[in-house]
């Protein structure tokens, strides 16, 4: 199995990520209101909550796409929100996958996969190409290396986007509602890839609306509302017995109980 690409794993004694009282404001509006939590190595955290609760913003603060106004974020103990941070270096270590894939339309699949390893990590092109092919085989898209994004289905695009992030061998992977714009039957093929990564020990922070997925994959669930962590815990406990009324109400919106008597001509 030595030729199958693996996620990068380093022995660590400290949390990979540590967020401490993170505050994010847009003008007067506070989007993140003192968020603190640790992410241990190999831990998978699902971030859930209603829209506008700050989930995506939270992910974007971790790789500096959103500057924060208070608190701090540490990656491997190093404060990355300090002044003078070279974000390009940090982002090379923190992978991110977007809801809308954001493959580069002017490059074919291989071009998308090689851009960052070759330009940023200065990996030898042949070596990077080889790694890309192995990843493509793993996600079942080896035959699409020369395809352009336009020629791929949503599910295929998203799998490529995941592989593109993995090509940089990130220490943490941020997944921002990666199945939200997919047709239902394509959700599975993408989530299966993520499940496999979790099994291999990839550290991940996952924003999702797929409750069943969150329950299956996460070591811990963070429930956000109004820019605060309202509740957190193990998925089984959280989904079966949420402690807060707010979380209960949120989870209720995902279940339907039949309120009507059966109608129609059936006798």
């Amino acid at each position, binding site marked *: 199995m030595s030729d199958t690409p693996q996620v990068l794993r380093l022995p660590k004694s400290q949390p990979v990520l540590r967020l401490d009282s993170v505050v994010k404001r847009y003008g007067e509006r506070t989007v993140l209101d003192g968020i603190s939590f640790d992410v241990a190595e190999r831990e998978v955290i699902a971030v859930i909550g209603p829209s506008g609760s700050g989930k995506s913003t939270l992910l974007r603060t971790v790789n500096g796409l959103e500057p924060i106004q208070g608190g701090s974020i540490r990656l491997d103990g190093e404060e990355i929100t300090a002044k003078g941070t070279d974000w*390009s270096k940090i*982002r090379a270590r923190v992978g991110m996958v977007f809801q809308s894939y954001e493959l580069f339309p002017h490059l074919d699949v291989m071009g998308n996969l090689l851009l*960052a390893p070759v330009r940023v990590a200065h990996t030898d092109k042949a070596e990077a190409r080889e790694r890309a092919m192995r990843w493509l085989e793993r996600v079942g898209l080896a035959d699409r290396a020369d395809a352009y994004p336009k020629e791929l289905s949503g599910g295929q695009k998203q799998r490529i986007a995941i592989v593109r992030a993995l090509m940089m061998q990130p220490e943490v992977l941020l997944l921002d509602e990666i199945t939200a714009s997919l047709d239902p039957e394509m959700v599975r093929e993408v989530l299966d890839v993520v499940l496999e990564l979790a099994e291999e020990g990839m550290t991940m922070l996952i924003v999702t609306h797929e409750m069943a997925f969150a329950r299956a994959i996460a070591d811990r669930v963070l429930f956000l509302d109004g820019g605060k962590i309202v509740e957190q815990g193990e998925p089984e406990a959280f989904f079966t017995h949420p402690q807060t009324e707010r979380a209960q109400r949120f989870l209720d919106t995902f279940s339907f109980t039949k309120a009507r008597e059966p109608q129609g001509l059936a006798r």
Partner: protein
Amino acid sequence: MDLSTLTEYLPLYAQAAWLTLWVGVAGIALSFVIGVLCAAVRHFRIPVLRNVAGVYVELSRNTPLVVQLFFLYFGLPKLGILISSEQCAVIGLAFLGGSYMAEALRSGLEAVESIQTQSALALGLNPVQTLRHVVLPQAVAISVPALAANVVFLLKETSVVSIVALPDLVYVAKDLIGNDYNTVEALALLVGFYLVLLLPLSLLFAWLERRLRADGRRAKSRAPKTLGSWAVKEAAHA
């Protein structure tokens, strides 16, 4: 139409066509440089300079070339700045074309969605690499049809430079009509020479556009969301 008159006039027109081409190429090259600078300054919202560029673009696009040339040719000497007819024509063309080039390039830059930039940054590319490898290739592909249309437009605009006493094609035609009354021959050659200059260029650009359109169709990931290059082209000339 008299054939011997045509052959007699031919060298005069050839010389004038050379001048038209020279002024056109120099003016267009300069206008492209101005366009790149203005588009960059406005797209990246560089303070003060973006306002200067904004005023320039409006001034340039909303005054006729003839007026701009008058200003350069008759106005500047009053301020103690003397320039030749050629310099005047080239500068005038660049002043007019710069704004059109700027708008074509800017609409290309703006058609590339900011999340593409974020996606490149998230991979660890620095801002310069992001511009070079992700934003510019997409922006230029979108801009090319509008830029090409501008080149043809500007080359045609050179036809007014005779008003600053530059012996271009129009000047020669007017001169010959005034001297010899061979109106038909003079006009036929005038039209013929412009066609010889512009038709190959138009055909080249049409071919280029078709190629880009093929690539563009392949390259669009979310067609309905982004402004297509054809919409952009329309917008740039609206």
